[in-house]
């Protein structure tokens, strides 16, 4: 009998260990696969802004987008990852209540030298740090890409890369530390809840782009002497629309990466998934709500625009407007919010244009305005819901006031560095291309290749 018990105990231990290995491998694979999915976002932005460029600038737009990705990864490795773990409680670098933040903690896990380097490279005992870093680095690349499309056809390449680094490896990371971390002060003090990063990625990027656009100025020929705007059509609408669809595909990976899987030492729960705040979530919730939001955004945009560019932008606006609460919205509710975002998107873009802002792809509106709209809508819809995991009465709850404060902070975290750094670059002559280069075309000025060496045929005239 004792022998049988010992044998069963040994078998149980073996099974438990085996299940643990399977869970760890699953967790590692889960986040690893979000990385190529998020690279599809970047492919989408690449196609989107190349299509939105005129033929004379198409490759230049592509070069800057590719370089943004390339510089985002190492700079996020050098300091972005450290900022995320160091700053949740504010600029004091002090440790937060969850014990996973502060300068000391960040320096022990997120530096490429000293003892911390063991978590910043191959480590047989650490199957989490690399995939988490990868997912966050791709969040950073996505954020920088959002700004990229707005400034096409007149921004200098290196000036743009510097701005992309400030946005992707600093500005949004501070927003994430404050509002997307269990120790983040916006979360612990104001109950800010932004599951899918409507504010801390999209609004930060959108308002960063606005700050840049003010200093950059419009493309030559965009506005007439009386202030009225001309439409500058991109050279390839199908490429732009396909790019937008690729962004939608990639966002399934982006939002999947916002889920904390169960069963690991760093998980919130042993038996269920959680948001980054430790509140419960399932991938099924995402499936229901993202799909309904995409549909709602497209339909809302179609009503007034009938334009495939704005319809696909509406799909993106649908996701962004619901991103803060994809974990708790009812699908039909997500549809309604997304539908409203699809409707207001184009008037918001037109309003901005009437104020002399030349946003070539509508990024300020789709990501910035709709991002803030999404953060605030969650405050309207979900007041009283726990914003963070914890015992009743001890955790902050979602409130409209808290979401408005969060939205304001996210907007400022984008706009202020975007305006400030682009102002400095402007003074240094590194922001805008000279008029002669803009008129001749940026490809012929500085790209040693041709986008369409055999030309492209003219398409049919548009409908009235």
């Amino acid at each position: 009998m004792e022998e049988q018990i010992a044998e069963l105990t040994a078998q149980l231990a073996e099974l438990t260990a085996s299940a643990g290995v399977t869970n760890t491998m699953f967790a590692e694979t889960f986040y690893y696969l979000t990385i190529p999915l998020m690279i599809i976002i970047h492919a989408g932005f690449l196609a989107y802004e190349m299509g939105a460029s005129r033929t004379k600038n198409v490759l230049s737009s592509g070069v800057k987008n590719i370089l943004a990705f390339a510089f985002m990864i190492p700079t996020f490795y050098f300091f972005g990852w450290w900022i995320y773990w160091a700053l949740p409680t504010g600029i004091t670098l002090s440790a937060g209540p969850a014990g996973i933040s502060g300068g000391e903690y960040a320096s022990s896990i997120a530096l490429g030298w000293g003892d911390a380097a063991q978590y910043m490279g191959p480590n047989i005992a650490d199957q989490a740090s690399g995939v988490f870093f990868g997912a966050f680095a791709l969040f950073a690349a996505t954020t920088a890409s959002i700004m990229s499309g707005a400034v096409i056809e007149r921004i200098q390449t290196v000036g743009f890369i510097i701005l992309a680094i400030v946005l992707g490896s600093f500005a949004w990371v501070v927003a994430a530390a404050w509002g997307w971390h269990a120790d983040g002060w916006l979360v612990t003090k104001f109950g800010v809840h932004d599951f899918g990063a409507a504010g801390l990625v999209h609004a930060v990027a959108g308002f960063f782009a606005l700050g840049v656009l003010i200093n950059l100025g419009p493309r030559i020929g965009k506005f007439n002497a009386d202030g009225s705007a001309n439409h500058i059509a991109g050279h390839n609408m199908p490429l732009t629309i396909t790019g937008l669809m690729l962004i939608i595909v990639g966002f399934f990976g982006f939002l999947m990466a916002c889920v904390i899987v169960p069963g690991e030492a760093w998980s919130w729960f042993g038996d269920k998934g959680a948001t980054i705040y430790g509140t419960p979530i399932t991938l099924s919730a995402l499936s229901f709500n993202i799909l309904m939001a995409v549909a709602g955004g497209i339909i809302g945009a179609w009503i007034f625009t009938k334009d495939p560019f704005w319809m696909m932008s509406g799909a993106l606006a649908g996701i962004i407007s619901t991103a803060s609460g994809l974990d708790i919205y009812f699908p039909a509710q997500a549809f309604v919010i997304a539908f409203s975002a699809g409707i207001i998107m184009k008037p918001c873009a037109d309003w901005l244009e009437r104020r002399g802002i030349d946003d070539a792809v509508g990024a300020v509106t789709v990501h910035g305005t709709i991002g803030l709209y999404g953060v605030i809508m969650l405050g309207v819809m979900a007041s009283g819901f726990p914003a963070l995991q914890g015992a009743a009465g001890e955790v902050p709850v979602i409130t409209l006031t808290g979401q408005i404060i969060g939205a304001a902070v996210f907007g400022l975290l984008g706009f202020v560095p975007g305006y400030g750094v682009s102002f400095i670059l402007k003074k240094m002559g590194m922001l805008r291309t000279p008029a002669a280069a803009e008129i001749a075309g940026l490809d012929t000025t500085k790209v040693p290749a041709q986008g369409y060496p055999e030309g492209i045929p003219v398409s049919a005239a548009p409908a009235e």
Partner: protein
Amino acid sequence: MGFPFETASWDVVDGAMFIGWGTVMPGVYTLIAAVICVYTLWAGNRAEQKHYKRVEK
């Protein structure tokens, strides 16, 4: 930079397993990589400004 353990076997490795672990080399490589990025931006900007000047002439 040899294998940083007495026995040349992966069986003795239970943590970091990259070249240079436990030495200053990860920091040195990090610094070199950072310098490459900064230099590329500096050189890239110089080249870009030359292109613009050529077009303006």
